[in-house]
């Protein structure tokens, strides 16, 4: 007993000695926009539509259709920052086509060693043009990986497409944009296309029980912070951008499955062959509190109204055209009034490994896609 107490006493003394060496806290090195000030949101709720989206380098506000560009230029948004960080507006206001503006803000950390440039945008929420073809010709490679977006007829940038590239970036294995699961390929049906490749995430990914990263691209948002902790919740599928009832999804694809199919533990499953997935879902949302479908329920939620899914895509070495009809499910019927009220969100998803959400697939599986088009009911 005495021996045990001595042991405890020694442990305590050592801990006390270690703790006594703790130094004064250094000033913060982070310089994030954490939130938009509630008071400012409240003052401007008349022109804002929905909640702002805050990423690591951008804040996106959506504004009402009737707001004028000159009104937008008067806005002076107020932000909550990492404690001690400073923000200054570069006050260069750029017009984003005819439907919005963006301005650049500069943040500096409390310790003065780090800074970031944020793009703050105010955009009128657009819907998909009924003639729009998704040709994947608009992309930016300002990061280590490629980011795709759409442009409307007036040249307004619409950040509709998302990928999981930001999650893969964490593995440190992406040295050039081509190393990432979702990349550009210049040999499209017309111009460029999107190349989706299932990649290994290395020993680190294996340890995290996420040994593969399938290539994916989808309409929605990718939440990088969730990428490893809650990967299924990182892929937020869908935006409220449907112009009318979708009838069919058309496009082109080609696919080659990787040789070795593996499970979450990176163990080979001999009798399985990888397959790609291309689908589109229209589902119900509450316009005042949009909660999107994510990797856990995008094909199973009872909020789904319409689904178009490519059946048995197989492996096609040449560009293959497809046309898949939207079918009503869950006993629901498409309602134009609900659409007008912003109660429907739509997503289009393509991935190089269908089981990628549960980290099943084959490294090397490659899907090419191009010229996607949603055909809408004109009535």
């Amino acid at each position, binding site marked *: 007993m005495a021996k045990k107490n001595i*042991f405890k006493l*020694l*442990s305590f003394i*050592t*801990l006390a000695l*270690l*703790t006594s*060496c*703790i*130094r*004064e*806290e*250094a000033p*913060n*090195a*982070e*310089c*994030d926009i954490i939130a938009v000030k509630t008071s400012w949101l409240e003052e401007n709720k008349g022109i804002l539509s929905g909640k702002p989206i805050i990423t*690591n380098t951008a804040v996106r506000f959506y504004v009402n259709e009737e707001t004028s560009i000159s009104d937008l230029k008067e806005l002076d948004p107020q932000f909550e920052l990492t404690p001690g960080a400073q923000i200054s507006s570069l006050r260069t206001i750029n017009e984003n086509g005819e439907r919005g503006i963006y301005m650049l803000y500069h943040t500096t*950390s409390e310790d003065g060693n*780090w*800074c*970031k440039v944020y793009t703050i945008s105010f955009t009128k929420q657009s819907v998909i043009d009924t003639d729009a073809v998704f040709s994947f010709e608009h992309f930016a490679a300002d990061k280590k990986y490629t980011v795709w977006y759409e442009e409307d007829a007036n040249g307004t940038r619409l950040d509709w497409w998302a990928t999981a590239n*930001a999650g893969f*970036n*964490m*593995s*440190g*294995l*992406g*040295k050039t944009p081509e190393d990432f699961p979702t990349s550009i390929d210049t040999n499209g049906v017309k111009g460029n296309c999107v190349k989706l490749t299932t990649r*290994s*995430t*290395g*020993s*680190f*990914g294996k*340890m*995290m029980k996420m040994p593969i990263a399938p290539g994916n691209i989808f309409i929605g948002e990718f939440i*990088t*912070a*969730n*990428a*490893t*902790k809650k990967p299924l919740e990182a892929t937020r599928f869908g935006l409220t951008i449907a112009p009318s009832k979708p009838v069919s999804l058309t496009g082109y694809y080609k696919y080659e499955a990787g040789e070795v199919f593996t499970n979450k533990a990176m163990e080979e499953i001999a009798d399985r062959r990888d397959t790609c997935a291309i689908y589109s879902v229209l589902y119900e949302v509450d316009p005042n509190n949009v909660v999107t479908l994510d990797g856990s329920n995008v094909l199973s939620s009872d909020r789904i109204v319409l689904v178009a899914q490519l059946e048995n895509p197989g492996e096609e070495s040449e560009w293959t055209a497809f046309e898949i009809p939207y079918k009503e499910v869950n006993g629901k019927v498409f309602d134009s009034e609900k659409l007008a009220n912003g109660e429907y969100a739509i997503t289009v998803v393509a991935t190089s490994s269908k089981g990628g959400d549960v980290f099943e697939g084959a490294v090397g599986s490659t899907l090419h896609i191009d010229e996607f088009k949603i055909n809408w009911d004109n009535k």
Partner: protein
Amino acid sequence: MKKIFIALFASIIAFTATAGNENVKEGKNWSVRLSVGYNIGGTAPMPMPVEIRSIEGFNPGLNLSFEESVQFLFGKGHWGLRFGARVETKGMTTNAQTKNYYMEVVNGDGIVAGNWTGKVETTVKNIYLTIPLLAVYQINDRWNVSAGAYASFLLNGNFTGYAYEGYLREGNPTGEKIELDKAAYDFSDDLRKFNWGLQAGAEYQICNHLAIFADIKWGLNGIFPSDYNCVTFALYPIYGTLGLTCNF
């Protein structure tokens, strides 16, 4: 490698044990000593980096030290020399809260790098073959003090742990914020094979052949190579030992 060291150690014991018997017969200016001790301490950065905000848990573990040494006293004076060999474990488990701690983890061809804010649990358990060389001062029949240097060779290294309940800023503090539940690491293979330092202690003779002692051993080179980026601050083994010595 390990077997060779153990065999070597065993033969030193056998040799000195025989020599010890003769020593008893012949005279008193040298002695053979067998010690067993308990090591407690930390493998810790010095000074503590600002990135470590608090130590929330500490478990010293069971770290034993077995030493065989020979001590000479010069002439009839107080001064002497002690040298020998010991097999010892230096280890501990700590839980620390870090803020903005830069780390790198090699991931195949890539590197997972960034600034970690969150908790880190680290377990160190290193087994060394150590050669101490000490000056001894015999104060009186009961007390002696010693000080000198030691050289340690890593027989078996273990440096593992995990980062949990926090987030990584990818690359630097402005990078993407990625929340992590738990990410394990194992840097055992990267430990330095050689460690050296200073040691000092005191010993009290409680009866004819038995003494109790207390030592402090202060490592002077980090347990990882100085250009090692997975653990960016140098970690020094700093341990105290309490134990018993049989001397003949």
